[in-house]
């Protein structure tokens, strides 16, 4: 159609005849652009570690629970990649088997923290002023006792000998900060119309919490929940190092490090450095991921 009209009026110079509809190339962001600003390195390293732990039996080249009595305190070599500890266990194999319990404790502990913190915080946030301040005071009382002392009391009374009880101990002592944040968030949204409506048509506490409150403050607390994974792992390893956590035969990064004191006497650096590096790298990766979830506040430019 257009071509015929153009032909007919070809004697004239038509202004704008060269006009073409500009169709911009669809800007599909390249992979590089899409990944910009996201914690790729942390995610990849963490993925490798997690996969390594899941597929530990395929990676380990020795039995992690076996004591090789003729090969105690060997430096890293071709046979034992990360060396052996003073009991003659292969560190390379324990690393991945031990990561299983350390990561499990991190995730389970964070789940306990989230459950307790969200429930308590919501309860306190929706309660009347009097009950709210009572609940907050009780929490501050326990929050004011140094966390490690609280854990010492609990582990002295209820020894945490396996992964599940360890996660419980670690989780029970770590939810105070989260509860305070949740309470603050809940108090901001508890008088909105939809919450009032849900309550006035007879929504029970847990229903309102699940359907209306949690989805609203979830993004605000994601960062705290993720970083509690790393704090749970830290607490577990600290406790195991102090000899109050998992026993030596329950493999974890913490219980590996409980041999650190003997390693100091024998001056076998690999027993101390290698599990610790794994621990620290994992913690840093989790933190990086958590920081990504934190809402970035847009600051205006400095007046300085």
């Amino acid at each position: 159609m257009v071509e015929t009209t153009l032909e007919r009026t070809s004697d004239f110079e038509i202004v704008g005849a060269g006009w073409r509809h500009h169709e911009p190339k669809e800007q599909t962001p390249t992979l590089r652009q899409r990944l910009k600003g996201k914690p790729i390195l942390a995610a990849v390293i963490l993925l490798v570690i997690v996969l390594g732990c899941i597929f530990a039996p395929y990676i380990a080249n020795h039995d992690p629970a076996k004591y090789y009595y003729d090969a105690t305190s060997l430096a890293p070599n071709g046979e034992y990649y990360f060396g052996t500890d003073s009991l003659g266990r292969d560190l390379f194999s324990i690393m991945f088997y031990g990561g299983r319990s350390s990561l499990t404790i991190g995730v389970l502990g964070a789940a306990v923290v989230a459950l307790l913190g969200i429930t308590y915080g919501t309860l306190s946030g929706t309660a009347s002023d009097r009950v709210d301040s009572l609940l907050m005071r009780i929490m501050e009382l326990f929050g004011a006792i140094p966390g490690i002392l609280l854990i010492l009391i609990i582990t002295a009374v209820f020894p945490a000998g396996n992964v599940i009880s360890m996660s419980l101990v670690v989780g029970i002592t770590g939810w105070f900060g989260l509860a305070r944040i949740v309470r603050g968030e809940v108090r901001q949204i508890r008088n909105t119309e939809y919450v009032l409506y849900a309550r006035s048509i007879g929504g029970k506490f847990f229903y309102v919490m699940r359907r209306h409150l949690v989805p609203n403050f979830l993004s605000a607390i994601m960062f705290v929940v993720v970083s509690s994974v790393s704090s749970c792992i830290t607490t577990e390893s600290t406790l195991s190092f102090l000899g109050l956590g998992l026993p030596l035969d329950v493999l974890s990064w913490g219980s590996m490090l409980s041999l650190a004191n003997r390693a100091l006497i024998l001056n076998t650096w690999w027993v101390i450095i290698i599990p610790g590096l794994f621990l620290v790298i994992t913690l840093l990766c989790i933190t990086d991921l958590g920081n990504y979830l934190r809402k970035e506040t847009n600051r205006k430019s400095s007046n300085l």
Partner: protein
Amino acid sequence: MRITSLSKRIIRRIGLLILVMFILSLVVFFLARLAPGDPLQSFYGDQLDSMTQEEIDAARVRLGLNDGLVQQYIRWFTNALHGEFGISLKHKQPVMNVVKPLIGNTLLLGVLAYAAVFGLATVLAVFCVLHEERFLDRLICRIGTVFYYTPGFWLGVVLVLIFAVNLGWFPSSGAYDIGMKNDLGNRVSHLVLPLFVMIASHLWYYAYMIRNKLLDEVRKDYVLLAKSKGCTRRQIVWKHCLRNVAPTIVSIMAISIPHVTGGTVVVESVFSYPGIGNLAVEAAKYHDYNLLMVDVLITGFAVFVSSFIAQTINEEIDPRMKEMETIQW
């Protein structure tokens, strides 16, 4: 909270402190009694097997184990008011005798670390604010995060491995060598590594908080005014912004006391530093409940007293605090 006079507020705080300590002792007492294991067994040990039934019954009556829990608590409480907290099962002597000589050591470590952490945190925060989003700021943020997330005990062990075992610059454990209690140099050399761990694992958390507060502060209008008057950037941050942030820093210092105290527990046991933190770990390991209870009570007392003091100071330097909804006891 109404604005009341200083003395009234202090009296109120002391009342609350007593209440808090009472609750804490209750919790600790009942937790310790919930513990598995026969108290008689832990009191007499192997002797128990050779005792007749009558002797056991007599011992139960003498130790008051047949009374109800409430009665036991009341008796423990009245004894505690006299300063008697029972016998340490591990050390076989009154708990207070075990704890007393160690309090000073912990106090020394804790107070030094606390002062150093907040002094350095403030300086570091100001430095970062002056170099905001430039290379040095980013570098410090990165290093700070790495140190903060490195577990304190591991850092301690690594430092011992490097500086005590291999280089031999510092001793690996204890507070002083035998017979050198009053030798200052000896004590300092024992304190270097523990202090470094304490500072390294706490510093960045607080420096970062102060840094963020200061970053909000330098965006306020009075900074423009100060700048147009001709103040240098340093002057503005040190003299104007920091003063406005001071109440927040004091609040953070108050909240941080349990955190730093908890840090001493781990550090003391890594370096076998003779303090009450190390003692608490030992007590927990040996199920020495009397000792653990006293340890927790002393630590709790110290924490509560210092946070009350911090709050009172805060209200004095910033009158707005009295009206604000802060953590009030």
